[in-house]
């Protein structure tokens, strides 16, 4: 990988937000908000310029300290990383704008919770670092940066429910990190390298590799709240402040998924079997049904949205069985790989936009009503037209109705499922969509219903509502550049790849 063109952008994408986070510490609450918002805008601009650079020059790398891997660490932006960085930047900047007004209204006397902005910039830098990293141990460090700042953000309100949920989140996150680190230690012990590209060439199948795959997958599943490790997500995400809920649900959980995807496809091909793909697919399928059903049963808005995240993350896991081919099938004949990858990427992006919009809308409603029990959503349309529209649009994208990004994701997933002949996943996708439609339409029915008693809606700044609506519209607009996006992604080595397991041989994987 060291022959690729070098660029300063990878270093800047991590360094700039951390520099600004550090600077912001020297200011009081109001100054921190200014530095934080300016930092968000700068980081977004930098991300977009970096992506433009990748479209022009292809994958670019940065060899930190000038020491070639495997001793040193290499950062790279390939098209796949660029898409994730772009999603983070676009959704992140809207959440920043929302947070700017949100904290000004909510903490009018103090000027906002002072730790939000530095923590958010640290989180942003950590996520960028995670998408850029090509090194197993460095990925662990970025997971730490992301995990600890995410937990700190989750407990920002200082309420008992948030602290309890945050502690559980912290314990889950640390368990996940330790499991991941254990796997990395095993891999390093057996190969003497941590560089992902090199590992893809030198990793030998065997008991150690298989066990490392197992613990790394377990650790990342805990971190991305994959079923059955989703228990920490609903309380932590629903008890946090609105902008934080949006950050955690829309962006942070995607980090662990990204690592899982990269490691399965680029490193662990030698140890993966068809059954492993089916198993993780089952976990995803159960998450889709269970999460959607739980969301349907909740009576408070934020808990509905949080449980819906469990389900939507399940769809991401359902991509894996399509990428691991049945014995005897070759990558060339598998025409469903491209749709499966597209489904995964579109699910990540459209869920980021829709879920951020949904949580931000929930925050607006809490601000207006003082609580988020759904029976009070009656006549939402009459009182807050823009927010009602944001919830409707985001909901449509979550269900997967055309012409939303969610539709693109679910359509491509179904296409992949039928082309691959793994028809047993199809009912899950449909049931999940039906259940999602159930809770979204339940909310919309209430929003249009005439008010029974007059719930007083306190006035909320229009700017907050507009930001939430823009994100919801964003989950539709992402469909338009689909052709360009897929063409761009196809220049990435990993996009569209599949794993050909060889079933005969030794007891562990592909001997």
């Amino acid at each position: 990988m060291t022959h690729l063109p070098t660029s300063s952008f990878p270093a800047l994408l991590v360094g700039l937000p951390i520099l600004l986070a550090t600077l912001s510490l020297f200011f009081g609450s109001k100054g921190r908000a200014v530095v934080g918002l300016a930092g968000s805008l700068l980081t977004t601009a930098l991300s977009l310029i970096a992506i433009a650079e990748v479209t022009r020059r292809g994958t670019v790398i940065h060899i930190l300290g000038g020491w070639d891997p495997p001793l040193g660490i290499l950062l790279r932006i390939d098209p796949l990383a660029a898409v994730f960085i772009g999603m983070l930047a676009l959704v992140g900047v809207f959440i920043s704008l929302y947070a700017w007004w949100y904290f000004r209204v909510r903490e009018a006397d103090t000027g906002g919770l002072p730790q939000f902005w530095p923590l958010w910039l640290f989180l942003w830098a950590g996520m960028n670092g995670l998408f850029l990293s090509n090194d197993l141990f460095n990925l662990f460090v970025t997971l730490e940066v992301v995990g600890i700042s995410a937990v700190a953000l989750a407990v920002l309100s200082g309420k008992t429910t948030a602290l309890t949920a945050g502690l559980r989140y912290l314990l889950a996150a640390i368990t996940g990190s330790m499991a991941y680190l254990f796997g990395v230690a095993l891999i390093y012990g057996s190969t003497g390298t941590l560089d992902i590209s090199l590992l893809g060439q030198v990793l030998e199948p065997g008991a150690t590799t298989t066990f490392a795959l197992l613990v790394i997958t377990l650790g990342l599943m805990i971190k991305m709240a994959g079923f059955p490790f989703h228990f920490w997500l609903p309380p932590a995400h629903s008890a946090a402040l609105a902008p934080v809920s949006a950050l955690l649900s829309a962006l942070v959980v995607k980090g662990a998924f990204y690592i899982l995807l990269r490691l399965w496809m680029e490193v662990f091909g030698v140890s993966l079997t068809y059954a492993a793909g089916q198993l993780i697919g089952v976990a995803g399928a159960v998450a889709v049904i269970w999460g959607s059903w739980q969301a349907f049963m909740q009576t408070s808005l934020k808990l509905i949205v949080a449980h819906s995240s469990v389900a939507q993350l399940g769809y991401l896991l359902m991509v894996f069985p399509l990428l691991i081919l049945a014995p005897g099938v070759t990558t060339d004949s598998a025409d469903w790989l491209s749709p499966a990858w597209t489904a995964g990427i579109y699910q990540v992006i459209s869920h980021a936009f829709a879920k951020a919009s949904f949580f931000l809308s929930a925050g607006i409603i809490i601000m207006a009503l003082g609580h988020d029990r759904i029976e009070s959503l009656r006549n939402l349309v009459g009182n807050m037209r823009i927010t009602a529209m944001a919830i409707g649009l985001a909901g449509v994208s979550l269900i997967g109705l055309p012409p939303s990004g969610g539709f693109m994701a679910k359509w491509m997933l179904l296409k992949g499922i039928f082309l691959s002949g793994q028809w047993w996943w199809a009912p899950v996708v449909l049931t999940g969509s039906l259940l999602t439609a159930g809770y979204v339409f339940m909310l919309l029915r209430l929003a249009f219903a005439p008010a029974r008693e007059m719930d007083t809606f306190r006035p909320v700044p229009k700017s907050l509502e507009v930001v939430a609506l823009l994100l919801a519209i964003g989950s539709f607009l992402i469909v338009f550049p689909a052709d360009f996006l897929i063409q761009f992604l196809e220049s990435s080595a990993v996009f569209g790849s599949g794993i050909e397991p060889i079933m005969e041989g030794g007891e562990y994987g592909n001997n």
Partner: protein
Amino acid sequence: MSLIIDGLLAILAIYLALQSLLAPRLTQSVFLFFAFGLALALAWIRLAAVDVAITEAAIAAGFLGVLFLDALRDFAPRIPAKNEAVQKQYSKSQTKSLFLPRLTLWAGLGLFLLIALEAVWKIPEGGGLTAAAGTLLPESGVENPVTAVLLNFRAYDTWLEMGVILIGLLAVFAAGGKMAYRKPGVASQDPLLRQVILFFTPVLFLFGAFLLYIGKTGPGGAFQAGVLWGAIGILLHLGGWPFIALMPRWLGQLLLTVGLGFFLVLGFLFMAAGGALFEYPPAYAGILILIIETLAAISIAAALSAIFALLNQIGEEADEIESTT
């Protein structure tokens, strides 16, 4: 002979860990945890990883121990009575119904451990990156390969970890809902304590400085020195000189961020000069690493003292609420 020592050490570490988890009283758990940390430090020495051993002893047995003791002082008086009642009730009603789940849990854990052992046992001979680090050591500016890896070959990881320490402090602030430290009350009147602290402060400082300097050639470095200097901050705080709370805000923030910030700005400067991030000119690598380590140790010390000062203050406030209600 060495096999017997290693075996005993392994058994001791596992025994202490289990005892710490299963001890009926929190105080016992905490003291067993100290012992566990020291046993681990010994294990690291047996593995010839003296750097890790010092850090383990300083962080796990030292700093975490102090935090645990502080938490114990705040919460232990409120827990026991309730705890015993709850435990009695718990053991009566739950023991029977929990038997099967417990059995499955332990069986599952045992199976997991066995597979893990097999995985570790079967690690092929790899050799790791020790050889590569050794070859490039002369270009790194230091003679200790561990320092070379931490501050030069993989400086990026270390830089991010310094960020993690700062984030940890912010997390304590966030959880406590605090922006500032409370202004301190009267200094401690215990003359013996003050004398002891006055004696230990310069000793700890010198020992920290020694570890920092020796890191260039042997085991030692910024993290170890930072913990020792942090101990000074904690001692001074306990003795009634809470300098973290007394110093002006900008100075406190400067101490906390100077390690991370200087490291990054230096990295950016070399990048602007045409190199990569954290690419030092080989001729100056040695002195630059020493400066970075010194500033990092200062920041680590400041962060550890600040975390302690904040937690200590939260505990005191809880005491006040207790006494007024």
